[in-house]
């Protein structure tokens, strides 16, 4: 044990041990959310300014967000302060584990402990099994993970809770001590785990939540300085759960909704900014009238219902468009440039987007565009450009000159003498 400790000592200048961590894995929707509560203690010689998190390579490829925060204040005045998380490289990480480093606000001195809360979201990691189901069957998925947290540090105590959407768990790997109570599966309490310890587990459970995946999303934002921001979004939606096999019987689907098509979905909810107007929902055939828009003061909700319910492997393509007031999104920065502050992500809730393209159309007469895109996603996209207000006169001057040309033509016609006889 001493020998292993010392080799790790050489690559880090400090050691941080995890004295107690609690992992809560939420499998109740189609996207997996993991909440970690880590109590870190510095047992090395020097100060620790960041804490490392490790992920196995398959999970790291599908990571959507990693967020960390620490609690400050006591009891009622507890506030959570976000910490920045950045990917790092470490030369001796085994088996291609990917590392992220959380920067602490105050460096941890020797002997000190701190509590960190980490949230990370993984997409595309619930594997449907059986791969194909018929209309009247329910959907079961595999969840692959490890009973112990993959960590570059020595872990003294650890417990993992897995929450499934309902009681139907077909099977789960037992890594003692393991217990299951209703919708909660507990792995732990484990003591004294060496760094990078990994015990793979598989949980096979029923999950009928909508597995909506947007394969490709193209968003066009058109800025008009006369007061409007027009957004047009082209979606290619797919149901990424267990594929549908056999026939689709509409009679059975409508007459027994609790048995037939439980894993399919009919509705999708999109969250739009508050003062939205002129919302439309179309596809290549034409307008789709099955939608509801609820306007509010904080946000607006658009509930769309595609022309047919989506079963496993089925796709739908549609366009959603809406207009927004300009003053909510376009600002003038102190150095005179205009900048657009717009949310980057997809407005559909509980959906995963595989490919996202954003196009911003700047008004005529803009110069020097540049953009700042912060990652991870769900942040604001900022586009900067120079625009002088005189350029706005381009449009009315075009119209004025067109009409004036018409009047000049009238005058010219009336002055030209086309008669052959002298009058």
């Amino acid at each position, binding site marked *: 044990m001493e020998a292993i400790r010392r080799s790790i000592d050489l690559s880090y200048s400090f050691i941080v041990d995890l004295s107690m961590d609690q992992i809560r894995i939420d499998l109740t929707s189609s996207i997996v959310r993991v909440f970690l509560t880590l109590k870190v203690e510095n047992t090395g010689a020097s100060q620790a300014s960041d804490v490392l998190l490790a992920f196995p390579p398959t999970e790291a490829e599908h990571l959507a967000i990693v967020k960390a925060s620490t609690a400050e204040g006591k009891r009622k005045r507890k506030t959570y302060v976000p910490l920045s998380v950045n990917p790092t490289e470490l030369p001796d990480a085994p088996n291609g584990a990917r590392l992220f480093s959380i920067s602490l606000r105050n460096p941890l001195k020797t002997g000190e402990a701190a509590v960190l809360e980490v949230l990370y979201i993984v997409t595309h990691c619930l594997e449907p099994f059986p791969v194909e189901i018929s209309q009247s069957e329910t959907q079961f998925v595999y969840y692959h993970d490890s009973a112990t947290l993959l960590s570059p540090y020595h872990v003294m105590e650890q417990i993992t809770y897995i929450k499934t959407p309902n009681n139907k768990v077909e099977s789960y790997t037992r890594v003692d001590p393991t217990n299951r109570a209703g919708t909660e599966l507990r792995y732990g309490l484990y003591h004294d785990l060496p760094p990078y310890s990994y015990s793979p587990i598989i949980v096979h459970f029923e999950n009928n939540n909508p597995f909506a995946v947007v394969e490709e999303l193209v968003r066009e934002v*058109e800025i*008009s*300085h*006369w*007061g*409007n921001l*027009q957004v047009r979004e082209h979606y290619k939606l797919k149901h990424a759960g267990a594929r549908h096999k056999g026939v689709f019987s509409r009679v059975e689907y409508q007459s027994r909704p609790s048995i037939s098509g439980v894993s399919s979905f009919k509705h999708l909810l999109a969250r739009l900014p508050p003062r939205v107007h*002129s919302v439309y929902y179309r596809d290549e055939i034409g307008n789709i009238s099955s939608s509801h828009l609820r306007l509010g003061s904080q946000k607006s909700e658009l509930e769309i219902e595609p022309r047919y319910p989506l079963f496993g492997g089925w796709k739908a393509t549609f366009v959603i468009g809406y*207009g927004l*007031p*300009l*003053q*909510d999104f*376009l*600002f*003038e*920065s*102190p150095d005179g440039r*205009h*900048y657009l502050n717009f949310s980057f992500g997809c407005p559909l809730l509980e959906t995963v987007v595989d490919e996202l393209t954003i196009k911003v159309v700047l008004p005529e007469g803009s110069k020097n565009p540049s953009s700042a895109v912060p990652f991870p996603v769900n942040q604001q996209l900022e586009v900067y450009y120079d625009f002088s*207000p005189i350029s*706005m006169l381009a*449009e*009315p*001057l075009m*119209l*004025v*000159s*067109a*009409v*004036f040309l*018409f*009047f*000049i033509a*009238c*005058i010219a016609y*009336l*002055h030209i003498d086309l008669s052959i006889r002298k009058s």
Partner: protein
Amino acid sequence: MAPKPISSPVPVAWYPSLAVLMLSIGLVVTASFFIYEATSSRRNRSLSKEITTGAVASVFLGFGSLFLLLATGVYV
């Protein structure tokens, strides 16, 4: 330090009223232009009066049609 939001130079709520007002003035001036053309004889016409009336009418008609486009939602 709070960034200043940018909005249209003309309040958006005025667009329909401005459109109607400017188009009606423009059409009245156009009418006066054609009445002048019809009533005056070829010798009494003054080119400067025709051109100024035409210019004023085209300015009002141009801006009026711009506000008409904006009021209907075609944000040019």
